[in-house]
């Protein structure tokens, strides 16, 4: 008996594949995959149109755990594969999953270009400041002095800021969240998804084996409120247990400072209001570092513009209109020809 039924609403579980997850127990990646499955359920993303593309590393195993299409590629190059896939079929909803070594070391060039081209996809960078799968070497985001098998006396090179890099590359959407923020993280994924263009999301992710607690200074429950600034478009930048601390912009120096409401004559009107279209504000938020400042989380920057694949597709359509139906025989006979009898 054929009865038309309402398609069932997909739940987070429906986005989980049947594969056994092989991350270390307690790894932050579990929380991220859970947040992603929740996001897709919230969005009711058609699984057949959803593609996860990854490079190499712990994070890169992510696609195997999603009941969507998935392509686990080679180290650092996920963005390049994803660009090809998105250009070839712009109807697909493409997510790139990467880690700090994959995205910012071996794949730094591809990250630059996927962002500047503004390919309409979501690029999620799991930043744990360490190489996990290769057993604990320091990474391009590791802080100076990080002791690791390859830097037994501590690393000496300066780390790169993922979001500062993304902004410099010309990204038009930059957000930050934390693996353990199970309410905030799906919101960020959903915002990234809604953004038309390349969306860059940095997720601070805890590596329980090689870099445990590296973000405790702002993610631990006891200090989170005082050391995190959750920004929202149009809202004043307030934080702290009492929600009485705020960020003020000194118009003379164009520098930010932390102020407290009610102290030194500070009132609500002194507090900087977040404007996610303001690139300068984004860059100032990105530059905020502990211990002077809280760590800014949320959508730091969102200012959409035309996407790469829209431009490419438009040119193809233009050319078709201009030259009429394509005919291979006409092409082969274009230019001077002659007949031999």
């Amino acid at each position, binding site marked *: 008996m054929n009865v038309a039924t309402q398609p069932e609403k997909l739940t987070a579980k429906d986005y989980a*594949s049947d*594969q056994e997850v092989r991350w270390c127990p307690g790894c932050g990646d579990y929380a991220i995959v859970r947040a992603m499955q929740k996001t897709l359920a919230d969005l009711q993303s058609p*699984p*057949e*149109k959803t*593609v996860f*593309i990854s490079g190499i590393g712990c994070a890169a195993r992510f*696609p*195997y755990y*999603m*009941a*969507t*299409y*998935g*392509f*686990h*590629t*080679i180290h650092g*190059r996920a*963005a*390049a*594969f*994803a*660009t*090809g*896939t*998105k*250009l*070839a*079929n712009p*109807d*697909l909803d493409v997510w790139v999953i990467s880690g700090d070594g994959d995205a910012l070391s071996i794949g730094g*060039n*591809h990250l*630059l*270009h996927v962002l500047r081209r503004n390919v309409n996809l979501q690029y999620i960078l799991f930043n744990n400041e360490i190489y996990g799968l290769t057993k604990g070497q320091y990474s391009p985001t590791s802080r100076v002095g990080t002791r690791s098998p390859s830097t037994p006396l501590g690393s000496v090179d300066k780390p790169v800021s993922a979001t500062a890099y993304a902004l410099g590359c010309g990204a038009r959407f930059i957000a930050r969240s934390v693996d353990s923020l199970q309410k905030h993280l799906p919101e960020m994924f959903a915002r990234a998804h809604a953004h038309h263009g390349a969306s860059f999301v940095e997720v601070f992710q805890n590596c329980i084996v090689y870099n445990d607690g590296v973000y405790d200074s702002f993610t631990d429950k006891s200090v989170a409120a005082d050391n995190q600034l959750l920004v929202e478009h149009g809202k004043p930048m307030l934080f702290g247990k009492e929600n009485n601390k705020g960020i003020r912009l000194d118009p003379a120096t164009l520098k930010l400072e932390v102020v407290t409401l009610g102290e030194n004559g500070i009132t609500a009107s002194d507090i900087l209001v977040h404007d996610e279209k303001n690139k300068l504000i984004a860059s100032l938020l990105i530059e905020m570092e502990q211990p002077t400042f809280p760590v800014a989380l949320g959508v730091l920057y969102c200012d959409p513009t035309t996407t790469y694949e829209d431009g*490419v597709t438009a*040119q*193809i359509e*233009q*050319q*078709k209109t*201009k*030259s*009429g*139906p*394509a*005919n*291979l*025989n006409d*092409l*082969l*006979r274009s*230019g*001077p*020809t*002659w*007949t*031999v*009898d």
Partner: protein
Amino acid sequence: MEGTTAIPVKEGQREEIEDVVIRFAGDSGDGIQITGGQFTLTTALAGNDLATFPDFPAEIRAPAGTTFGVSAFQIHFGSRDIKTAGDAPDVLVALNPAALKVNLRDLQPGGLIIADSGAFTDRNLKKAGFTGNPLEDGSLSNYRLITVDISKNTLEAVKPFGLSQKEALRCKNMWTLGLVYWLYDRDRKPTADWLRAKFSERPEIADANIAAVDAGHVFGEASEVSDGGRAYTVAPAEIQPGLYRTVTGIQATAWGLVAGAQSVGLDIFFAGYPITPASAVLHTLARLKQFNVITFQAEDEIAAVCAAIGGSYAGKLGVTASSGPGVALKGEAIGLAISVELPLVILNVQRAGPSTGMPTKTEQSDLYQAVFGRNADSPLAVVAARSPADCFETAIEAARLATKYMTPVMFLTDGYLANASEPWLIPDADTLERTPVNFHTDPDGFHPFLRDEKTLARAWAIPGTPGLMHRIGGIEKSYETGNISYEPENHQKMTDTRRNKILNIANDIPEQTVEVGTEGGKVAVVGWGSTYGPINRAVNVLRNDGLDVSHIHLRHIWPLPRNLGDLLRSYDHVIIPEMNTGQLVTVLRSEYLIDAKGLNKVSGQPFKVTEIVSAVRDHLEAHK
């Protein structure tokens, strides 16, 4: 000095010759390639068979007048079958001393030099490294010499058009073309038409250039030349009837890819990164958007191949093109395409190496790289084109194999084939074989590594297909389920399957035939790629001398044709000319345990017919 004025040629007094090789040479700013292109077109329209070979420096604008800034274009045409651009020019057109300096060593003894005496100034002579003026000091007495102040004559001819001195001098190549047109009895009209179309925005430039062509021609007619007034005619060749055009290897490659994609029912996704000499394929395809061709100039060679694989993943025919150094960078990603079994065409327009080598010079030294050049057991199919026009069919074959067997295919051409041109009997696209790809859509029993029993190709289900969501990747997969597997027996089985899938292609390609000569006999000269022309001509020359020599030419480099071993064993001697230090010869010796001998050349220049002829003769002499 000006030469003696000779008796004017009367019509009907032209000497009829079978074939001739002309080399135009000058400074890279002299428009030599355009001159050669126009002479080629006119000669094709005259019904001759022909082959061309452009040879230009890597430097975009090398300092004027220097030997490393010399650009040359050689054309061989005749009333017989022409397979090569010719060993040694009969005629050398030298528009400056450097061009003479660089090219004189190739000229036939007694050959004709046409030199622009106006460019043989003390300064230019010194730059080219001459101590005296060869046009005047008798050092060219072994050649016939026409010296004309082409610069002065050109300025004179274009005076009425009010061009600047610089623009006027640019017409010098057209004046020269006019003179050579007269010498070889060519029609000027196609060039006039071309000039009018090219300079439609600036008619005075077109008119000046046409006037220059005419003036050069009149100069010849009036026989103010110092070569005894000799002029020639070359009768049309006996050519298979039909509609023809000239085609370069680059054009044929790009069009062949479009045709190949059409024949398998897919659109092209082409990703490339600028590299000499492969970039021209990207340029050509970028203008074919009406065929739904997507071209993507990637940020590097690696991104190009990865994007192409990403395109294939989404259901396009992914194609990338490069030259040896770029293909080296693509190696890891090609391995992934082998592992996930996705179609991919990798075009390698080979050039002289290693490393940067000589980017504008030809070589065929990437055969090892194509067949073996990846980590692990990573088999793929390799095909190679033999002539500019053959790039068309070889591209179609590459597309067929890639999609039918779900595999990367390495498609080899080289710098010579890319830029050389030949007449082409234009095929009818409507008669192309159509074998459209069937994407897998049936969820019943589906997993991504479900195989076709006959081809061993895996099922191709593309993202967007409901019910077939799956994950693929570079980690070893279970033969049974497609999921990640580290099982020892499974890896053995998957490795064997990947190998067998490729070797099995041998049953789906034609048996190897003999190009010229007989199956079995004394000597087989075996080639691949662009050595086709010189080997073919050399074998014909040897056979005309009564020697038992045959020509075998491979299109399929891997897997090899299934009858090749038996075929090669049916000859007493196998000689393999290659523009490398012996790569195919190693493969054939290893595959068939035959005592094949290499004939190797790596000068950045194609083989000369005489080099192959004498090598085969020497070999036979030594094995009497």
